[in-house]
């Protein structure tokens, strides 16, 4: 950590870049953050005057796939962000320091940049049994999150684990895995869900915070609107097959070969908010649906419990394996019909005398009244 913090412009010039390079970089990240070109002036100004923001990147209950995804970001190139434009002061996966040195770096940053640092969290936080299922340097994840969040300027939850619990929080959730926003009541936590999130989305979010000094516009689930406002379904290149009613029935049929819609084999595209269909993966090469596999909805809460992945309706727990709402509904419907039929039979038996009486009486009355009419003529 340098003693005198440099602005991003100063730092670039010191490295031998020209101002033209700097402006090119500014327009690059403006586009990556999903900001309109008219916002370019603000970005330039911000990066001319702002110091490199220190970033604390925590890892808790997770598989590090978010980091793996992040370091494969191509737009903007990750090394530009991680090594040049932000000051990544603490991250278990990438840092050279270990043990006491690493912890010292963490605490120095929290002290020195109080209210200035960006806190990013990868992974859920276990809460059961006092949070003992995830500890770092002898302290629980819960403890660390709460301490770091106290003076963080911005809190970002990377991936589904930190945003909604993901597989750790799946039933029966033995460790009490909890998404970050739930253990930090009253704090704004930006959720960037996905298992993992798309690298360009992560990079876009970071550069937005970098350039504008605040979190981007969020939706109802605190996800950045720029990347999570549309369903995978809405940008799916197979959507015309959906509207035309052309579906894959099984993975080895003719329709699968033709590339029809995967809706009937359980595609979660219609219920999943993400940018996979637009940004795609691995430098825009492909994404699951393009590779012939239905979306499993990995950026949606409880996606793991909403299975099986290859059928559209979730199984209803408590009714045995492969029991969907439709199976239960059919049984209830048939049961109701049977009950109604039994009731109708019972009615005719039990009320037979009464009905017979009414029929007799009306017959009598009809005879009487017709008799009167005849008599009157």
């Amino acid at each position: 950590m340098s003693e005198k913090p440099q602005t991003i412009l100063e730092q670039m010039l010191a490295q031998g870049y020209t101002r033209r390079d700097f402006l090119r970089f500014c327009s690059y990240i403006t586009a990556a953050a999903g900001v309109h070109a008219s916002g370019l002036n603000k970005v330039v100004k911000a990066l001319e005057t702002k110091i490199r923001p220190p970033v604390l990147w925590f890892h808790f209950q997770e598989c590090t796939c978010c980091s793996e995804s992040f370091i494969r970001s191509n737009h903007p190139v990750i090394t530009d962000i991680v090594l040049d434009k932000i000051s990544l002061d603490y991250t278990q996966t990438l840092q050279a320091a270990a043990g006491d040195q690493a912890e010292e770096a963490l605490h120095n940053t929290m002290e020195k940049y109080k209210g200035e640092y960006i806190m990013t969290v990868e992974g859920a936080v276990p809460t059961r049994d006092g949070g003992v299922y995830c500890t770092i340097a002898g302290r629980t994840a819960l403890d660390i999150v709460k301490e770091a969040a106290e003076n963080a300027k911005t809190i970002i939850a990377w991936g589904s684990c930190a945003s909604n619990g993901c597989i750790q929080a799946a039933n029966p959730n033995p460790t009490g895995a909890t998404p970050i926003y739930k253990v930090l009541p009253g704090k704004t936590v930006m959720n960037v869900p996905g298992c993992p999130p798309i690298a360009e989305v992560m990079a876009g979010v970071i550069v937005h915070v970098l350039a504008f000094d605040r979190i981007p516009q969020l939706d109802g689930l605190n996800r950045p609107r720029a990347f999570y406002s549309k369903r995978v379904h809405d940008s799916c290149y197979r959507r015309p097959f959906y509207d035309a009613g052309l579906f894959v029935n099984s993975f080895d049929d003719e329709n699968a070969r033709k590339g029809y819609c995967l809706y009937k084999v359980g595609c979660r595209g219609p219920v999943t908010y993400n940018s996979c269909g637009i940004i795609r993966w691995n430098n825009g090469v492909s994404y699951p649906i393009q590779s012939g596999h239905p979306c499993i909805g990995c950026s949606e809460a409880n996606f793991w419990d909403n299975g099986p992945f290859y059928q559209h309706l979730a199984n209803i727990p408590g009714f045995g394996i492969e029991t969907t709402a439709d199976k239960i509904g059919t049984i209830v419907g048939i049961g109701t019909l049977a009950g109604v039929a039994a009731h109708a039979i019972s009615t005719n038996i039990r009320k037979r005398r009464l009905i017979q009486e009414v029929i007799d009486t009306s017959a009598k009355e009809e005879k009487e009244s017709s008799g009167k009419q005849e008599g009157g003529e």
Partner: protein
Amino acid sequence: MEKTIVNHSQPTEYYEVYVWEWPVRLFHWVNFFSIMILAVTGYFIGNPISIASISEASAQYWFGKIRFVHFVTAYIFVFNSVIRIYWGFVGNKYVRFNNFIPTSRKQWDEILDVLKMDVLQIREKATHSVGHNALAGFIYAIGFVIFLFSVFTGFGLYSAMTDSWFAGLFAWVVPAMGGDHAVRLWHHMLMWFYLVFMIVHVYLAAYHDYVEATGTISSMFGGWKFLRKKKQITR
């Protein structure tokens, strides 16, 4: 609850009561047809039949049409209910909201009596309210809450694919219920409620028509019910 037995020693005389005014009957049938359309199209949306076709996707749009019909009918369903709510304030005494919420002792007694008659089948004949009996009214009140649940979940899902301000009013439902998948599952399960409701509702209407002989079924077409004159009824 007075128990009534027809005195068969003299001819039965009836009088007519105009129970269901035309807006109520219209509501009922529009409601019926919209639920039928919503249930059928909704079932296909959840579980589409696969039509093998040799024509290109650009040449057909049947699934899009089914969804379109579902969405249009949903609007009809909602605004039809709005009209019914309005009529609950200005309509005759049989359609007012106090028929639906059992608040008085009399209504609770009637609920018990209807249960005896419908479930245990132990009452021979009883005089219930001319309009909805207290139990039916109460079930419709619960049904109305379920209508609302369908509307909220349905328009919540729809809000993601439209710019309509009306659907936008329900956008908060999705995050509140934990995502589209959960909302969708609830919305789908509710369809089975309507199916069961319809079976029981139609059967009980027929049953009461049969054992009470007051013209229950025809009243939803013509509005009239037929009641025996009191003097011919002995306690």
